[in-house]
């Protein structure tokens, strides 16, 4: 008796309650597909971005030295405010063309190269100024 009732119940479920899983006319079906496409697009973009990102192979330990480096901010401020004027002044005074056919021509060339290399470093330019005064006999 019990078995018969159970089998009848199953038949009843199979006949009435099963609805089709994928209904093309249903709006929620299309919404879920659009959502899936959007998620896939953003995931792809994120993965691609991660591949292109720089310094990904470096660890925090690699940068510890740079992180603990002491930076002289006063020197940077001096470079911002005064290096340009000093550079222009040194360039005009120590230009190798002013020392053509003299014994100081080579020294002037060397100093001029150093000046060009340290164009925006006030500290180095100050040292070069002292060197130029001594070695090239120029008056600042």
């Amino acid at each position, binding site marked *: 008796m019990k078995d018969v009732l159970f089998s009848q119940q199953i038949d009843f479920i199979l006949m009435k309650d099963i609805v089709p899983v994928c209904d093309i006319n249903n709006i929620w079906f299309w919404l879920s597909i659009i959502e899936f496409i959007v998620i896939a697009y953003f995931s792809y973009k994120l993965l691609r971005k991660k591949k292109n990102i720089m310094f990904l192979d470096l*660890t925090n330990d690699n940068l510890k030295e*740079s992180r603990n*480096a002491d930076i002289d901010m*006063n020197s*940077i401020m001096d470079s911002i405010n005064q290096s340009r004027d000093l550079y222009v002044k040194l360039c005009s005074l120590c230009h190798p063309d002013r020392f053509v056919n003299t014994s100081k021509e080579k020294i002037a060339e060397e100093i001029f190269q150093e000046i060009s290399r340290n164009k925006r470093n006030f500290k180095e330019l100050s040292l070069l100024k002292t060197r130029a005064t001594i070695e090239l006999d120029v008056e600042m």
Partner: protein
Amino acid sequence: MWYKIIQIAEWFGEMADRIKLIRDFNAAARYSFIGGFADTLLEAKITRGDSSYRHAFSKFMGGGFRIKTLSGTHMARFELIEVGQVILSNEMLIRKLISLGWDTLEVQDEFGAIGCKWALKDHAHIRGILPG
């Protein structure tokens, strides 16, 4: 568990280093302005930065290092570029900025009308010096 605690401590240490760097820069700028060496007062602050300049160490919503002129003589565009170039020419500072999570250097005038920005990763030369 311990690893996580160390990570959190490192994060706080990094934030303290960032704030210290900004404070040092602002103090040096203030002293040079008061001392009469500088015509314009500069101020550094943390901004969002440019997302296209990001690298592996970039901080979320805090990747920009902005230098702004506050008062004094108005700075022309070439002067703003010059300020940026001085910062970029200091490799040590650039490496420190990168390691502390900055990715963009911005220099702006007082009204925010003229400004320039650079990607720090283009000026770092990190692989040449660090092992790995």
